[in-house]
């Protein structure tokens, strides 16, 4: 057994190193000067200097981008959780053709390629002045996210026994009452799943912000990254410093929430 453990540890460490290598290069680049990179690619920087970071911080509106990303992600995921839980409950508890039909429509929506809806969405956004606003894009994300959300919530609620609800109903509890008092407290694990999956997707999404948030004051992190890389394409060290700055919040979020994220994904996968 000992031998097997060591072998497993060795294999997994090698894979982990391969996985980390691109990050290592990014960090290395972020600390070097163009001259140092030009002279030798793998040599360590001659001194630890945060100049690239401060320069790219100044040049990039980083703070505004991260605020936008936070606001949009927060509004959208809240919206998604709220609407999907309600709709998921209805679908799970009403096993009637109409509800099943709605459920299937939601599922079919999941495979709609973004390319069909891209131009119409842009036109709608334009006409309803939803462009360059946090709410506008959040509503669209709400509509995207509700499909997967309903899938998860309906699956999860179906697995909850109806007995308590029926007892509560006999005691005179109404549907909303049941939902709030009995169902909501049980939904924590699946809610974690829905939040994590949607938050990651929305935080990293690129194409919808590219269309909806063209005003530079509304740019999210990936969009800002994209434009920054384009503008500083010849100044790679600055670009990599910016890249590292983009990784840090994600790493922080992950390390802080690791327990919930993993539980959430696992719970969603099994129950959904």
């Amino acid at each position, binding site marked *: 057994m000992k031998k097997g453990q060591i072998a497993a540890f060795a294999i997994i460490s090698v894979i982990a190193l391969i996985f980390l290598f691109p990050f290592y290069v990014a960090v290395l680049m972020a600390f070097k000067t*163009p*001259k140092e990179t*030009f002279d030798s690619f793998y040599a360590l920087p001659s001194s630890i200097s945060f100049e690239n970071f401060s320069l790219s911080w100044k040049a990039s509106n980083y703070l505004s981008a991260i605020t936008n990303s936070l606001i949009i992600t927060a509004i959208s995921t809240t919206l998604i959780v*709220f*609407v999907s839980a*309600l709709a998921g409950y209805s679908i799970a508890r009403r096993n009637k053709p109409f509800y099943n039909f709605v459920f299937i429509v939601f599922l079919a929506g999941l495979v709609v390629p973004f390319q069909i809806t891209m*131009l119409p969405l*842009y*036109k709608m*956004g*334009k006409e*309803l*002045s*939803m*462009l*360059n*606003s*946090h*709410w*506008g894009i959040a*509503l669209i994300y*709400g509509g995207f996210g509700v499909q997967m959300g309903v899938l998860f919530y309906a699956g999860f609620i179906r697995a909850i026994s109806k007995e308590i609800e029926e007892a509560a109903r006999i005691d*005179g*509890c*109404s549907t*909303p*009452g049941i939902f*709030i008092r009995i169902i909501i407290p049980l939904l924590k694990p699946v809610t974690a799943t829905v939040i994590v999956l949607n938050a990651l997707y929305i935080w990293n999404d690129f194409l919808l912000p*590219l*269309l909806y948030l*063209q*005003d*530079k*004051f*509304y740019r999210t992190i990936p969009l800002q990254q994209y*434009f920054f890389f*384009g*503008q*500083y*394409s*010849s100044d*790679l060290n600055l670009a990599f410093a910016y890249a590292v700055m983009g990784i840090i919040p994600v790493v922080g979020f992950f390390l802080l929430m690791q327990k919930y994220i993993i539980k959430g994904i696992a719970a969603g996968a099994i129950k959904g």
Partner: protein
Amino acid sequence: MKKSLALGLCALLMTLLLAACGGNNNEPQSSPASSDPAASAPAESSAAPTESAAEEKPVTISFMHFKSDVTDGVQKIVDQFEEANPNITVDVQPVKYDDYYTLLKTKMAGGDVVDVFTLNNGAQTKLFVDGGYVEDLTGQPLFENFDPSVVKAQETDGKNYIVPVNATPIAVFYNKKIFSDLGIAIPRTYDELIAAGKKIKEAGKTPFALGWKDGWTLGMWIGRDLPSNTALVENQPDFFAQLETGAAKFADNPATRTMIQHAKQIFDLGNKDQLGVDYNGVVDLFAKGDVGMMYMGTWPLADIQKKNPELYETGIGYFPYPFSNDASLNKLEFNPDASLAVGSNSKNKEAALKFVAFMASKEGGDSWVKNINSLSYVKGASADIAPAVTELQPYFDNGEVYDSQVYIKSTIDWQNQFVQNLQKLFFNKATEDEVIATMDDWVSKNHK
């Protein structure tokens, strides 16, 4: 208790419903700081009279440009303008060239307003003019600052929609040391160019730095070798106009074959990993001094100066790209780079025009030269941008310059398609004939 709870939830649901289905009426307006004119001024009728009356009122104009490799330089020019016009704020949006036209098109098609934007003379300009998105500037006084022939060359359908700002020779940088060590004279014909390349390769160095990982580098070369050979060697100046209407085919044009053969030869003499290294990568290679030649505009000079000042000062020369074997035809390619256009739906046309006029003035022209190391079309603007470029002075003095882009007036984007098909050829995934057939097939599907 239960009732009030139900009521509360009901109210909550209703608000949500309103928010979700009915209502964008309570959408927050976009922030005043950003002042996107598109978001706040929907009706044309209301905007026009107020604008003319309020000369002194602070206005913001948007300026979208594709010179994103020199963002800081452009910003400095804009700063200079804002200083002189304190009531005008310019919201600059630099966009990477590869995405620029897609983004501009989406915006325009969606009804967005961009007050001032850059366009390339030729196909792209024609497209936006045809769509009715560009203000006609014919007869504006600012054109007096240019040579009449320049103004004429930038016409679209006989009218002036765009104002040329900066210009660049597109020619071949060479490493003087490598050339003198190997006893290579500056090539004046295409065969001499290839012979020089082979000599460099035999000496164990890289003949050409290509950077063909980026689509535009190869596209730029195709878009010059082909029209030059078509119009000047094969005498078919109307070829591209006819291509658009279906009256001509690539197969009928011998220059197509010439270009494909050239491409293959240059590819074979290119840097290692020709399609894997991008523009920045080859500028690095060239700056290191291991590469003989690089076909490029003046853009990389600033970068080379930063990375290898010594090479920049004395080590680089610059010669016209010899597209043919007739030395008398091989003049210096000198192209407008970015030209400026004013959006036809701009609400701040006066301010936009002022901005364009500044760019076309002597002051603006000098500023372009100084800040982004490119030449200016403005009469009398300085031309001192880099040691290497002075080597081209005789061509300018003798008028031995030309612009191959005037031959391309078609709106279909065959260059990118050609890039991909040539890449097939490079890796022996298609023959010369197949490439030409595929291209003609593609054109027939895509012309209007």
